[in-house]
């Protein structure tokens, strides 16, 4: 395949950026999107130019590092991660636009790489349980109803990639935060921090400058792990409940 790529190039966080046009040839439709970018980068290096910086790690769709907006869609046209997107989803001769995640809370570091540490700070605010670590507990010691286990697993699938924020017209992190809150709040292991978790994570989410939810649904459409839109309603319910229950001082 022969393709025309228009890629966002930006030297660093403060430099202005712009789309740059490149031609790539000899692309197989079995290549992943990232391998196609590798091919481009090899050529750029041979020509003595700076390769295009992009985030990636596992290339198996499980780590959440890859983060490309492809033709305006976070992670491109299929419901998967950028690394698991294959070139057979495109036609020979296509022009493909590649841009970084866009959100005030995710500043561009370089080219297609953005700083997603705002997500880490949301997790630090409550995305954990205070169980003692050590040897693994006996598996049947804490029974979990099947429906709750399924609900927790569904939300535990979130890989923290940030596609939901990138797709949201408000740069909102509600889908990500709801996945993390719902995953832990439904389980007995998460019960001790059930109220503080949702209150603190939502507060830090707001402090980090993410927008609010207008229930547009773009997040759930973009999510490679299929975190559903009603997860946000479930978190809202937890937030309202926590405000009724949590002790209040001063």
């Amino acid at each position, binding site marked *: 395949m022969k393709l025309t790529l228009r890629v966002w190039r930006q030297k660093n966080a403060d430099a202005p950026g712009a789309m740059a046009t490149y031609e790539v040839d000899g692309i197989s439709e079995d290549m992943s999107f990232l391998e196609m970018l590798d091919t481009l980068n090899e050529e750029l290096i041979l020509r003595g130019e700076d390769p295009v910086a992009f985030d990636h790690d596992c290339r198996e769709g499980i780590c959440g590092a890859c983060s490309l907006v492809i033709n305006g869609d976070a992670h491109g046209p299929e419901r998967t991660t950028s690394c698991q997107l294959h070139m057979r989803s495109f036609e020979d001769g296509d022009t493909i636009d590649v841009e970084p995640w866009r959100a005030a809370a995710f500043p561009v570091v370089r080219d297609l790489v953005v700083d997603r540490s705002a997500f880490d700070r949301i997790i630090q605010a409550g995305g954990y349980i205070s169980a003692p670590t050590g040897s693994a507990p006996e598996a049947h010691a804490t029974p979990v109803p099947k429906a709750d286990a399924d609900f927790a697993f569904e939300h535990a699938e979130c890989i923290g990639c940030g596609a939901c924020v990138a797709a949201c017209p408000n740069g909102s992190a509600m889908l990500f935060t709801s996945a993390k809150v719902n995953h832990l709040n439904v389980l007995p292991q998460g019960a001790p921090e059930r109220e503080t978790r949702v209150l603190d994570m939502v507060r830090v989410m707001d402090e980090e400058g993410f927008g609010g939810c*207008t229930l547009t649904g773009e997040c759930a459409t973009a999510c490679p792990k299929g975190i559903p839109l009603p997860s946000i309603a479930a978190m809202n319910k937890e937030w309202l409940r926590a405000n009724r229950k949590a002790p209040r001082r001063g």
Partner: protein
Amino acid sequence: MALASRTDRKPSLPRTFWRSTVGKKTVMAVSGLIMIAYLVAHVMGNLKVFFGPGEFNAYGHWLRTMGEPVLHYEWGLWITRVVLLTAVIAHGVSAYQLSRRDIRARPTAYVHKRRHASYATRTMRWGGVIVALFIVWHILDLTTLTVNPNAQAGHPYENVVATFSTWYGNVIYIVAMLAVGLHIRHGFWSAAQTLGVGNASRDRALKALANGLALVLTAGFVSVPVAVMTGVVS
């Protein structure tokens, strides 16, 4: 353990709500639902226009005596007005502040533009502004009678017929009611999500309810200008 310290000094409940995007959205949802409940009562009152001036004007008079003898003359009406005004202001201010925040949260647009969410979803902000402007016009027209062509206090039937005997009266009301219908279509369902009532199994029912509510309210309101235009009501 160092974990439990974050929420030790917590601000008051109203403060928590007003500061949080989730809390402010709750304010929007509750005030929006109050306004929708009012619109349901309002459309039922409007439809009395089809039973002639006697019944419609008597209904207009009852609005002033409702709640008597517990309440004084017109107190019930004034309480309703205060509640509605509070709801409109709370809703509008929250909408404005959240919208400002949302725009700041996404300062750079994508170069590659693409399809977007549904029409009702995309028009919430401008649709809301149209509705707000309409509320002002509506009060000047049929409450204070400032801009009404008939302007006869105590004769709402005749004033309504006069409004819908002008082309601009019809245009303003019909456009505004279409905007209200779209707003409620996305708004009612959104409010269910914001208040945590929505979930996957209820989603279809909630969407159907939102569409039904929007359709019934819009059709009910629009039927009045259409009836005057076609001479069914005169």
